[in-house]
């Protein structure tokens, strides 16, 4: 079994190697001719008037928090779905109750407008 995971690890390394090779090849084959105007961030031809790393909307945080919640839910569902044969009616009903509780939370977020983007 470890054998198989070794294959995955080596495959990832080969993938990274291809990426590095493309970058290196580009480095070797292209010429470099920097000048200050070329190295400025692109802003439709205007001079950049402030730093690009600006404040952004708090809604992004909200979405990410909701994501953590739901992704955990998915993580719970994965082993449950694989073992569906073994857990039987008890497992099925437990998961239904768990999902119902989360669905109530989801409905609450929806009603409170956490999912609105405008």
């Amino acid at each position: 079994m470890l054998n198989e995971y070794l294959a995955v690890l080596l495959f990832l390394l080969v993938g990274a190697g291809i990426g590095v090779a493309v970058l290196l090849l580009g480095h070797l084959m292209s010429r470099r001719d920097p000048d200050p105007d070329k190295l400025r961030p692109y802003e439709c031809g205007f001079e950049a008037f402030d730093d690009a790393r600006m404040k952004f909307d708090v809604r992004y945080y909200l979405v990410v928090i909701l994501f953590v919640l739901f992704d955990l839910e998915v993580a719970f569902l994965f082993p449950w779905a694989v073992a569906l044969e073994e857990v039987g009616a008890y497992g099925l009903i437990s998961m239904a109750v768990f999902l119902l509780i989360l669905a109530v939370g989801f409905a609450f977020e929806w009603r409170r407008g956490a999912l609105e983007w405008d």
Partner: protein
Amino acid sequence: MPDWMTDLSVWLRVGEILLGAMVILLPLLAVVAYYTYAERKIVGFIQMRLGPSRVGPRGLFQPIADVLKLLTKEVVLPAQASRGLFLLAPLAALVPALGAWAVVPFDDGLWLANIDAGLLYVLALTSLGAYGIIIAGWASNSKYALLGAMRQAAQVVSYEIAMGFALVGVLMLSGSLNLAAIVQAQSGGILDWFFLPLLPLLLVYLVSGVAETNRLPFDVVEGESELVAGFHVEYSGSAFAVFFLAEYSAMILISALTATLFFGGWLSPLEGTQIAQAVPVLDSGIHWWLLKTAFFMFCFLWFRGTFPRYRYDQIMRLGWKVFIPVTLIWIFVLGAARYAGFTG
């Protein structure tokens, strides 16, 4: 020196794996190159144009010319960018997009690694691809790039959930995370493939796949009419080429996974019938996998040529208010069906 370092069989195995990785990755790169050609031709024909037609017969050498152009162009490192992160970002996008191919089964017994957590591994890697884009947007220190990366983060995160739920449906029917076992669970002909009992989940998965790879109509991350090029606005030459490779291999991966998870992978639709036994081409084999994958690859281009771009708030609404409820309800339905005695 530890024992395993002098053991010849270990090194033979390593060589075998490296060879296998090359046998998968090099054709994949060639397919990516010609996928771009197919894209320009197909979108061209949809719009009543010819597409590339100058380089070679029918423009067939266009991808080669493109590769040479990208490699010989200057890689501009913006003065205000974080140099290390700026160069790391394309790699962070490419490695997951290529890495997931390690566990894809092409035919019965034809795979590089057959791990039991296959689907979990694929889900993890497809999510990691977002990091490349977020790092690129931050490291570029450019407003367009940062806006693109912010949109990307929220979009991928939203569709990730729907995608995960859709996969739960597949797991409920197959009872295994092993991709080869999932294909084998669909054996018995076209009516036993998972797309029938999982039809709503298939649609959610396919659309989420388009959203996760930032393809039209969900390409607000790089939408050229809004953000010029979004997260890769500051990238040029070979650094841009790596992002390009990552995006296209991710599209091919989603196509391959749709074929594997919902459409029986290498299985023939006529499997088990007398026709399939009489005509070898109609029996299961890698050609069915290729055909199904090619069809979904075509769908990506078809969507691009057909749908106008969504507005950002529409994308978020579709992900949260349509896909998540639909998948949740379908998981309930599947569970109830299982309880009532239908085996799906």
